């Protein structure tokens, strides 16, 4: 309690508030929820630090100035009160002096809200309208990628593989909402053969709206998992949203990941499915997985293509195979396809192997859902190592399902059976442990209280023969 009070008056308090605003993407609800949950503002930013954007600087400066003004006014009133010996002024002065941190933490919300309603929103609406025209007139093959997980990967793989023989453009990084599609549309030259658009989903109706604006000719659905359930409430409503992409395409030219268990019941007969076994009549075999990459062979009739990638993880084979199959459809040569697949490499923080002190870590911290956990643990099981270590803080954003999801996670870990499990201590840790023990895990379990220390000291605990899989980042606004 005392720590909390003291942390209100710390010199970095305005910066902390700005950091909290930034981490919640300037959304009022999550920011205030986090604010009222926080016990010690000195410890908020212990995982990451504030990115010094212009907006952050302005907010931070605004907060500091506002607070300063309140302090000055409070002192003036206080002095006046003491001079005139007026009790009410003294009390008011003191109250004003002590309340500035709480007052300004809330006042800051007002300009943000006003700006959102009157400036940001109308501007966005206009831009999206303009982009609809661009997409309509563009003659390229337009591939939309949607799903609860794996969509950014799918988009990047398509881009890498198809770019060998075609002029391809794709939405950047994980910019996948209407306004980023609009920015993307502005940058298109019009001469692209293929345009790839990633659909982020956040709330019911999102995907349908995106489809209406971007007018895709091909749809890829990468998977279904309980994500963003705070908005969707049920898995079914999330599925309906994602599948509205198929509705838009009237169920034609829809490719669906048949390895996603929950997706199965929504699959229609007109859909094409892809998996690590087959896609569009191609058979996939000879899959070999090592820490340095994977190789596999695709064959259809007399055509036989041997492929190698720097990516790791069996779950990626299906996506790669779909890229190859589509590339063949678009008329790419086998040489281009082989070269394109060879160029596919792990993305930052996604199944990215790295050598440290003779051992390997696999950085999969970007992953944030159970499907990714499943894929990672399967990879860990398949690789050979003297000692395997699995590290996770658990999954964020699981809504009411959190308990079940984490117990399931514990069971999955037990099934993969690493020699050691390191859990970052937080509210879900005990559920993971429950899952581990119910599945009879007998390896070593370490509960780590200082995540940052753990991550920075990995080089001290790893050696040749070790493989350590790090999954699921845990940002500060979740406890």
């Amino acid at each position, binding site marked *: 309690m005392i720590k909390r009070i003291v942390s209100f008056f710390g010199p970095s308090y305005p910066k902390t508030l700005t950091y909290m605003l930034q981490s919640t993407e300037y959304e009022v609800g999550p920011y205030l929820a986090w604010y009222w949950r926080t016990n010690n503002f000195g410890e908020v930013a212990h995982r990451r630090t504030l990115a010094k954007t212009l907006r952050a600087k302005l907010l931070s400066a605004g907060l500091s100035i506002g607070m300063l003004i309140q302090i000055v006014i409070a002192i003036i009133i206080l002095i006046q009160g003491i001079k005139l010996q007026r009790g009410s002024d003294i009390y008011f002065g003191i109250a004003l002096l002590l309340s500035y941190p709480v007052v300004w933490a809330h006042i800051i919300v007002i300009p943000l809200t006003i700006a959102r309603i009157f400036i940001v929103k109308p501007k966005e609406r206009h831009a999206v309208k303009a982009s609809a025209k661009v997409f309509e007139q563009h003659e390229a093959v337009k591939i939309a990628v949607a799903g609860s997980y794996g969509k950014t990967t799918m988009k990047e793989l398509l881009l890498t593989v198809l770019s060998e023989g075609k002029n391809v453009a794709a939405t950047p990084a994980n910019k996948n909402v209407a306004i980023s599609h609009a920015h993307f549309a502005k940058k298109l030259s019009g001469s692209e053969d293929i345009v790839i658009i990633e659909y982020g989903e956040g709330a019911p109706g999102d995907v349908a709206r995106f489809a209406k604006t971007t007018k895709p000719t091909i749809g890829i659905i990468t998977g279904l998992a309980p994500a963003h359930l705070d908005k969707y409430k049920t898995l079914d409503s999330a599925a309906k949203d994602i599948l509205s992409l198929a509705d838009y395409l009237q169920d034609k030219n829809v490719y669906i990941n048949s390895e996603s268990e929950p997706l199965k019941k929504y699959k229609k007969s007109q859909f094409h499915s892809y998996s690590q076994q087959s896609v569009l009549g191609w058979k996939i075999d000879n899959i070999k997985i090592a820490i340095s990459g994977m190789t596999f062979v695709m064959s259809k009739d007399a055509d036989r293509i041997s492929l190698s990638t720097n990516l790791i993880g069996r779950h990626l084979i299906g996506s790669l195979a779909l890229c190859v199959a589509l590339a063949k459809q678009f008329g790419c040569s086998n040489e281009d396809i082989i070269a394109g697949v060879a160029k596919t490499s792990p993305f930052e923080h996604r199944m990215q192997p790295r050598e440290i*002190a*003779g*051992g390997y870590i696999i950085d999969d911290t970007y992953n944030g859902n159970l499907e990714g956990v499943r894929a990672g643990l399967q990879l860990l099981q398949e690789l050979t190592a003297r000692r395997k270590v699995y590290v996770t803080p658990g999954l964020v954003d699981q809504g009411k399902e959190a308990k079940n999801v984490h117990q399931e996670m514990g069971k999955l870990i037990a099934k993969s059976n690493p020699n050691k499990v390191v859990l970052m201590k937080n509210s879900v840790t005990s559920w993971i442990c429950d899952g581990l023990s119910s599945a009879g895990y007998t390896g070593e379990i370490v509960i780590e209280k200082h995540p940052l220390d753990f991550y920075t000291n990995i*080089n*001290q*605990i790893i*050696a*040749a*023969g*070790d493989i350590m899989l790090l999954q699921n980042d845990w940002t500060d606004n979740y406890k």
Partner: protein
Amino acid sequence: MDSMKTIAVIFGGRTTEHDVSIVTAIASIIKPLEVQGGYQIEPVYIAKDGSWYWDSKLKDIATFQSGEIEDFMRKAPKVQLSIDNGLTLIKSSQFAGRKQYKKIDVVFPAMHGTHGEDGELMGLLEMANVPYIGCGVAASAIAMDKVLAKQVTTSAGIASTPWVWFNAIDLERDLKGTLATIATLQYPLFVKPAHLGSSIGITKVDSKDQLMNALEVAIHYDNRVIVEQAVNNLVEVTLPIIGNDDPIPAMLEQPLLKSEDFFDFETKYMQGGKKGGKKGGSSKQGAQGYSQIPADLPKDVYDDAIKTGLEVYRVTGCAGIARVDMLIDIKTKKVMFNEINPMPGGLYSHNWNKAGMSNVDLVDKLVQLAEERWQKSQKITTAFSTSYLKQF
């Protein structure tokens, strides 16, 4: 906190390798011990003038890099030791007159070179009867005297390149005789001071007319000199080893810079010579990145070198940790003992990592080895009750 073991890490010292010792202690010992989480670390720094300091500030490399250490030393109280069947650190605290005490469970000497790696510190720790990491008094002294090390290993039947030795005074009193002894060797030769580590004071001599100058340099450093015949078709290797009665080898490592390549401008000289010619540190630290692990050798030679290294460790009585340097004539496949290093720079943890032992596992294991050795030594009877006094 009280259940945690307290480990004193002692580093610095009156030696040319003072700075290397600081880096070994802070980066390769204190850091992993802290990450391990089960130890309380007390850093003890021995300044160049021989004064002892003890403060948590000394765990931070920045204290030494920023020059803050000079301020610290002017103000900080020096450390007293209490030897009472164990070791206790004592210093007067800032609060007037009160003293701070800390009982030490295990000592981790991180000393390189003279007055520390050579057995002197170990003698003190033996007197205090406190467990400590690494070689004991005798093994340390043998390792740090090239002549003694050769004598011990030669008498145990371990091969060396032909060598002779003499004292500085012999050169003064009987130059002719000394030169005659050296004349039994074939050029090129290496002239080395007996006690210094790394390549300090070592001269490669190609012909007789260069010999006198080389001898002068060696006796400038030391009162004992060893002269060795250069090995043909040379491959240099080094083998880190840990353990007491059952030593474990790491990987055989082949430094890609040979220690006699003094004149290679871009590499050795530029690194070692720039800071006042104390080339001492460079070959200890520089091993990383300039070496091949494991050494690329035929299997029989590799195995023979491992065997020889372990044998050297055994016959010289090493315990805890050491590193054995060997010379190999790759044509004849003959493996020859060169030197022992009782406290390898940085613990040679880069090599242990490759051998599958993490930094934390390594220091953990070393602490465990120190305790085991100490416990064993407690069982050996050293005190008898006699009636000698009464009869007097």
